[in-house]
């Protein structure tokens, strides 16, 4: 395994913005993403996952640090103010880092 590092960016947010969020992420140059359905609690209260309006998604993007930064700033500008959202990243070791 080549140890060159790539960043894993994770965004947990409302599932109602899935389509727009994915568009935004791809527009910043991400080559892919993985989504899992989630529920949770945070500064905007309980999101129980029991029906559409109260469900979260957990989006993960493997990308270069530069793209991660672009995604973070765009997503923050577009969604952070009005939607329940947390966002974090950390470096990971991947196979074929050039893919991302």
């Amino acid at each position, binding site marked *: 395994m080549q140890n060159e590092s790539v960043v894993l960016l994770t965004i947990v947010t409302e599932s109602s913005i899935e389509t727009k969020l994915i568009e935004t992420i791809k527009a910043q140059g991400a080559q892919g993403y993985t989504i899992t359905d989630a529920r949770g609690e945070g500064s905007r209260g309980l999101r129980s996952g029991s029906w559409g*309006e109260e469900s979260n998604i957990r989006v993960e993007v493997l990308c270069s640090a530069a793209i991660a930064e672009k995604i973070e700033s765009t997503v923050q500008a577009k969604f952070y103010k009005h939607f329940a959202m947390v966002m974090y990243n950390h470096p990971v070791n991947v196979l074929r880092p050039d893919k991302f």
Partner: protein
Amino acid sequence: MSFDPILLFFILGLLSGVVRSPLRLPPQAYELVSIILLLAIGLKGGVELSSTSFMSLLPQILVVAAMGLALPLLAFPVLKIAGRFPRADAASIAAHYGSVSVGTYAVAAAYLANLGVTFEAHMPLLLVILEVPAIIVGVWLAKGAAANGQWRSLAHEIFSGKGIVLLLGGLAIGWIAGKDGVATIEPLFFDAFKGVLALFLLEMGVITASKLGDLKKYGFFLVIFAIGMPLVSAIIGGWLGLCLSLSVGGTAMLATLAASASYIAVPAAMRISVPEANPSLSLTASLGLTFPFNVLVGIPLYLEIARWLHA
């Protein structure tokens, strides 16, 4: 007078929510149940429409659409001035109350059927028509001229919304296929309807219970509004029903439609189009108060109003 058992399912859900029982329909089951309900209501309306002339319904359609535009315009200043809500929140709540609730519709239809009170068969069409105008007014109230660039994407958001597609789709299928055409799908969509509605109301009870806690947070004005607005709307709806020469049952149904507040189509559309509005505020009012009020108290009352108007 006997209490409709489907309401008992709502109360069961409510109680089990209040005692924090882990009882819940899985989200996917709740969605399946909703899909069947929406399709069934649409189908039923479509089948009836297939034996009516559309032109004869046009006046009703126009009047009802006008009501859908007017109700949020009525609610907005109350919320903004008396309730001191920020513009976006007032607009969003107003849109919820101008639109309709399919669950409330289904309970009212079952209630009237139980009592043997008939109503005009094209009510599902009016239900569909009432869903939309309030959303448009709501966005316009929230954004004013700033909304101008957005209408295309808003229109898509509204008309491609799950609720509208299923209701309209069911309506169209029922219309095209007619009574004989849908005979083979009756066991699932018509015969099992009340049982499916019971499951739906069970989960609605649980969801309502989960909203009760938030009520305190939002203060007394919201409680007043969530009970008072439906009453006012019901009188307007009932009066319009009378003007349109609807039957007693039809008048009661239109009063109920006016009184009901959306919790499916409007929240989804507002979240995208007016994201600065707090979704919890309108849902707490609509689901936590207005839905149970209408279902447990309002509907019989609106029938009385209709009877009194027709007397």
